[in-house]
Structure formats: C-alpha cells, structure tokens
C-alpha cells in the first residue's frame, strides 16, 4: 500500500535523523566522561554520566522502534526461507562474542548431538528469527551477573523447533512475571540495574512469535536466572 510505504519512509528518515543527533551526543558526552577534554569534578561527572545513560536509552528505543517497523513490514510469507537452525544460531552467537567477552559472560551452545538434528531446517522468515533470538540473547547478557553463563539449546519438535536461552542473571520478580510481555514493561530489578532498556524487546519478540503461530514461555527465579523457551513451526 502506498500509504504504508510513505509511512515507512518517514519512519526511516526520522530514525536516521534521530540517530545522527544521538551519535553526536553519545560521542561528545563519552569524550567528556573519558576526560579527553580535561578533568571533571564529581558533580559534573554525575550529570554527564546521567545524560550519557539517557542518550543510550533513546538509542535503544529508536533501534527497537525501527526493528518493530521492519518486523511488521516483513511478515509476508514470501520472506520465508529454509533456515538451517544450528548454523543461524551459531552465526548470531558469534555476533555477540565481543559483547559477552566484555561482560565476562560465557555463552554455551549445547548443540544437538545427532546428525539429523544438526541439519535441522525450519521454514521461517530469517530476519524475524534473528530478531527473536537476538533479543533473548541480548537480555540474557544484559541482565546476567559478572562471570555468569548463558546456555542455549535447540531441539526438534513435531513440525518445528524449540530453542531455549537460559541465563544465570538477576531473574524476574514473581509478581511481575505475568506482565513481562506487555509494551514498555521493564522488571523493577532491571530498572534498578545500570542497564538501559526500552521495555520493547520482549513485547516485540512475543508479538513476532505469536503472529507467526509460535509459542514463547519462561521460567524465572529472582536472583537465580531466567529461561526463555520459544517454539516455532514451519511457516
């Protein structure tokens, strides 16, 4: 539809403009924080640190909104292709290596042990598959503990695949678990952490899965960790 195309273009252009402003802020504030331009007193440092964090939250928000735009735009079945699940998971995990190294967290992919499962194929939109897995893996790293772990497994289920991402992180408080997939929801302990987040990641992830006939569930214990498990079927 022409209207949709126009809307998408406007979103893309606005996204570009916002990112440009936020890049400048990010770099300038980071230079000040790194004392590239001279020392700061503690009050100046606090103010700049807060501004930097707020700017990071905005970058995250724009990234999530644009991902959402892309995902709603890309749900047509024609975008489906045969995904070799294990290979794609490995590729995405590889993209997160430097991030996990920086955080001192080990990502362990427990690969299926039979040859047939190693070649496991899924007919699904690869872009959407990536968004789902990236969001879950990113959360597992962000809300983990120093020297924590992330364990990933992939198994076959009738006509599909089931993937789980387990972390050894801060977990989700029991009384907040029912609302974790709602828009802009961030768990209270996540808000208290130093991590930035928009509260859109799990919402978008669950929407994509539901709209494509899949299932997402989780189990979590505060202070111990969370396991997110999603099942996708051949589309």
């Amino acid at each position: 539809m022409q209207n949709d195309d126009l809307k998408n273009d406007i979103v893309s252009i606005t996204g570009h403009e916002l990112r440009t402003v936020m890049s400048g802020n990010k770099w300038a504030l980071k230079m000040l924080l790194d004392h590239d331009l001279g020392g700061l007193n503690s009050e100046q440092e606090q103010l700049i640190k807060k501004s930097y964090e707020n700017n990071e939250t905005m970058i995250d928000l724009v990234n999530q909104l644009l991902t959402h735009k892309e995902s709603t735009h890309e749900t047509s079945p024609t975008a489906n292709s045969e995904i070799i699940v294990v290979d794609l998971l490995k590729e995405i995990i590889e993209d997160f290596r430097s991030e996990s190294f920086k955080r001192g967290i080990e990502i362990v992919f427990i690969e299926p042990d039979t040859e047939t499962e190693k070649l496991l194929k899924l007919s699904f939109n690869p872009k959407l598959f990536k968004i789902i897995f990236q969001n879950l893996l990113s959360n597992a790293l962000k809300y983990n503990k120093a020297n924590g772990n992330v364990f990933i497994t992939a198994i076959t289920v009738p006509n599909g695949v089931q993937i789980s991402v387990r972390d050894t992180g801060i977990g989700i408080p029991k009384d907040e678990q029912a609302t974790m997939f709602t828009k802009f929801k961030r768990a209270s302990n996540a808000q208290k952490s130093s991590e930035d987040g928009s509260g859109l990641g799990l919402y978008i992830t669950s929407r994509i899965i539901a709209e494509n006939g899949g299932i997402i569930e989780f189990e979590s214990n505060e202070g111990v960790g969370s396991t997110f498990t999603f099942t996708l079927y051949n589309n």
Partner: protein
Amino acid sequence: MNKKILIVEDDEFLLGLEAKKLTMLGYVVSSAPSAEDAEMMLEKEIPDLILLDLLLPKTYGLDFLVKLKQNVKFNHVPVIVFSNVADQEEMKKAITLGASDYMIKSNFTLEEMESHIKLVLNK
C-alpha cells in the same frame, strides 16, 4: 608510521568528534565534506583507510564506493561505511560492493569504531 585516515562526512559536529578522537589515538586524519571533495583529495594523497558516510550532499556514499572499487589506483584502500542508515539491504549492498565493514554510528562509541579500524588495517 602513523596511519592515514580519510573521513568523508558532511556533518561538521560528527566530523569534529571523529577527527579529534582519531587524532588523539595517533592517526593522521584528513576529511572531505562530500564524495566530490574526497575524489580531489585522493588524487593528491592515498590514505590507509577511508571512513565513509552514506548520506552526502551530492553523490550517495555507495555510488562513490563503486567508483573507488573500479579505480585501480584506489581499489586496494579499505573502506569502512560509517553511517546512521540502518537498512539491512543497504548494509548487504555495501559489503557486496567491497566495503570492509559497515557500522551504524549510534551503536558504537568512537573507541569501538577505532577498534574496527585497527582490525581492518591489520588484515
């Protein structure tokens, strides 16, 4: 020898920050506000790496990349696309056309950007 970087960037604020950081990190930095200016500068001196923005005043960054890669005088110079265009298709296109890397500005600090430069230069 300090490595020479040519930054093709039309946003003065961003350019100033990129140039300052890279200079502090020991690079020799030159800059051009458009693809046309970059072409003139390349005639005078060939850098070790080009940091290329995409939305430039006249020629689009990827069209400039094509031109560079077609010219035997410059096609050995690695190009890192450094842009806020986050479109997956453009990213794929840039890599297919010969860019060594594609980075979305807002997702990286300047230190992280420099570590990518280092990686590309050491290849």
